[in-house]
């Protein structure tokens, strides 16, 4: 305990505390001591506390458990020119995420215990909690199962070949069966190759207009249907990554209604952006595709789709069909995006714009603020299992991972301010409403946005 002593006491006072894990949504104070939640109480006067107290005045702010991202590409090892574990973690806490889960599509891929150890040890020196997802298949090649128990033993929280689907239905069946009882889901990136080969954006009038090869929604839906069937067959634990189509959401809703243990996530960009953003000019509809068209920052997998898909994803998130928001943070270097649309890499740098993007669904009345917080805290924790509950609530005795944000602060995205090395976002220059003011991990303030908080002079 001596090592933690310097953290001392922190009092977050006057904020609207939203703690879905404990059914709390009220203006109240939160006291932190020695890195853990000490008390959540309507009135904790700082003067009543012994010893030094750091006070964070959070009037007008939301105070909630730190966000958990179960789908983060940190690129290290192998692609350190795109992102490192350290820069990715810095971006995470800037975005209010206190726990992130590194996807294993690195080079080499994370398919064995030694690789897990490497990422965990690098992550341990960062401000965020860095967890690791292990490969489903050896070398992420889609042929044979990775040593899944060894991976679990080393600490992985889920399995995924993300970046690619588990194409082989037989292998997916084996993975779901073999991993039963290991306590970690199989996260599949659903994309039927034969239906989208060569595609670079959603199939529809925009792709037709731009002469770009399209990816129909059924490319995703076909594999979602397959995987739901396999989950039912095996009793395995299936998690569906980054759903983007109305059809996928409907199938998950139906599967849950039948009592299947299937979970799903949606990315912030699929809640706000449509394929029309590929026409440039931040989506202002236009007859002509001028020089701003073919904005490679809109190239992402799954692709940005139409208004109806966006509406279905929002509805699915609101009614709980979709369990959580996950960023699919996919940072890239400049060269990977400064090229033609066809040559450009898939992916958006999301961590630092996620909150402002998701809050758009709150501001337009589609989802309540407390439900949104649920989908970014207890929602993702539930996907990963019981071990994560302690990071997802403000329960006394659990680690003080907390985010303080102003849901109404207007700010303009400027990629030059990003902590992430990935400046690839179509939202650069776009005004968002809602911004992180401070992030605490284990009771320590690991990020504070200058000028947003009255920190009582001690911070």
């Amino acid at each position, binding site marked *: 305990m001596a090592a933690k002593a310097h953290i001392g006491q922190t009092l977050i006072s006057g904020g609207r505390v939203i703690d879905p894990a404990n059914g709390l949504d009220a203006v109240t104070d939160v006291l932190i001591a020695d890195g853990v939640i000490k008390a959540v109480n309507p009135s904790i006067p700082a003067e009543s506390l012994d010893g030094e107290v750091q006070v964070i005045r959070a009037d007008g702010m939301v105070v909630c458990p730190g966000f958990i991202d179960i789908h983060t590409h940190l690129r290290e090892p192998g692609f350190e020119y795109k992102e490192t574990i350290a820069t990715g973690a810095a971006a995470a806490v800037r975005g209010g995420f206190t726990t992130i889960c590194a996807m294993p599509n690195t080079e080499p891929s994370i398919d064995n215990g030694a690789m897990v150890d490497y990422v965990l040890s690098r992550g341990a020196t960062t401000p965020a909690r860095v967890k690791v997802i292990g490969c489903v298949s050896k070398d992420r090649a889609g042929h044979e199962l990775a040593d899944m128990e060894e991976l679990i033993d080393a600490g992985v929280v889920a399995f995924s070949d993300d970046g690619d689907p588990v194409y082989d239905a037989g292998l997916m069946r084996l993975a779901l069966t073999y991993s039963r009882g290991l306590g970690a889901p199989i996260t599949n990136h659903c994309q039927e190759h034969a239906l989208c080969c060569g595609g670079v954006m959603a*199939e*529809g*009038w925009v*792709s*037709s*207009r*731009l*002469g*770009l*090869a*399209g990816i129909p929604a059924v490319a995703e839906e076909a594999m979602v249907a397959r995987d739901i069937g396999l989950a039912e067959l095996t009793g395995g634990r299936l998690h569906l990554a980054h759903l983007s189509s109305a059809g996928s959401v409907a199938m998950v809703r139906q599967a849950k209604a039948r009592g299947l243990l299937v979970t799903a996530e949606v990315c912030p960009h699929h809640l706000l952006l449509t394929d029309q953003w590929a026409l440039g000019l931040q989506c*202002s*509809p*236009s*007859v*002509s*595709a*001028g*020089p*701003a*068209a*073919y904005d490679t920052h809109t190239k992402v997998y799954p692709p940005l789709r139409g208004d109806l898909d966006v509406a279905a994803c929002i509805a699915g998130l609101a009614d709980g069909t979709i369990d959580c928001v996950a960023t699919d943070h996919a940072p890239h270097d400049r*060269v*990977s995006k*400064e*090229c*033609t*649309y*066809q*040559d450009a890499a898939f992916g958006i740098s999301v961590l630092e714009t996620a909150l402002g993007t998701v809050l758009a669904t709150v501001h337009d009345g589609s989802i309540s603020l407390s439900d949104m917080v649920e989908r970014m805290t207890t929602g993702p924790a539930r996907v990963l299992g019981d071990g994560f509950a302690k990071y997802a609530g403000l329960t006394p005795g659990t680690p003080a991972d907390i985010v303080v944000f102003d849901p109404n602060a207007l700010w303009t995205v400027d990629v030059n301010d990003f902590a992430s090395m990935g400046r690839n976002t179509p939202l650069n220059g776009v005004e968002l409403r809602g911004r992180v003011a401070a992030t605490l991990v284990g009771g320590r303030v690991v990020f504070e946005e200058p000028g947003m908080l009255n920190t009582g002079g001690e911070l």
Partner: protein
Amino acid sequence: MVVAATGDTRILQSDPPPVQGRRRHVLDLDDFTAEELTATLDNADAMRGVLERDVKKVPALRGRVVITLFYEASTRTRISFEEAGKILSADVINMTASASSVEKGESLLNTGLTLQAMGVDVIVIRHPHAGAPHFLARNLANVAVINAGDGAHAHPTQGLLDLYTARAHLGGIAGRKVVIVGDVLHSRVARSAVWGFAGLGASVVLCGPPTLMPDPLVPQGWGTGTGGNGAPNPLADVTVQPDLDAAIEGADLVMALRLQTERQQRGFFPSVREYIRRWQVNDDRMARANTNALLMHPGPMNEGIEVSSRLAHGERSLIEEQVTNGVAIRMALLYQLAGATVVED
């Protein structure tokens, strides 16, 4: 310099007045108004006059540097741009490049920046990837970009020369029925023709194997307040009819597209034989069109596949004339983009 009189005095002066409301780039025809389309065709008329002279040279682009930057094989388009530039006295430099991936060789951006730094005025680019001209236009502040074909997206100079050729023979475009038959899905020629012909008031019917028909180019409900921005749908009179016998009924102009035979290997249609059976433009089918209906093909033609040999070389065929008109159209565009003394942003 002696130049003979033709209809348009603008190209006859060594120091022509700036074109009103000039555009910076030619990326597609989707941002051409009917007035601008017509003005361009009118300018091409004047350029046709230059082409018919004994001495084919005017000084309109003297001191301008035009680069043809071709990442794809091309004969007629590249040569016609080169000829157009040289007749207008521009210095024309041809550059062929391999469309290697971004990891290999110099990136498209760096190539563009290098050319800009060398003081090039116009880049004429052909690239296998849709949007490559837009990418250059977005990143080069001081260069005019002309799209000479980008992937399956657009080929605006082909579209204009098709319009020009059609107008010369039909007398006008408005109210005419144009049938475009073939692999519309992968055709940049078709996309630009659609914007051009629809932009001048023709009705356009797209025809070909159902597997090679594209989605509509504008959202459903465009112009009804539920799509677009409430503006009228510029493509309201564009329809799809896969049956050629039905599509060609009453047509004034039939445009057959080049069939990439590798599409058959990818299964878009069962066999070339079946394609010919269903979609070849031949005498029997032309008989269903209007009397004196015309045939066009952007080339290069697979003679006997897209079009029967008899028809291709018959009197209704405008295929060779399209090539001649290509030079005139490209002269007009180069002049409109770079021919003025005032460089505007």
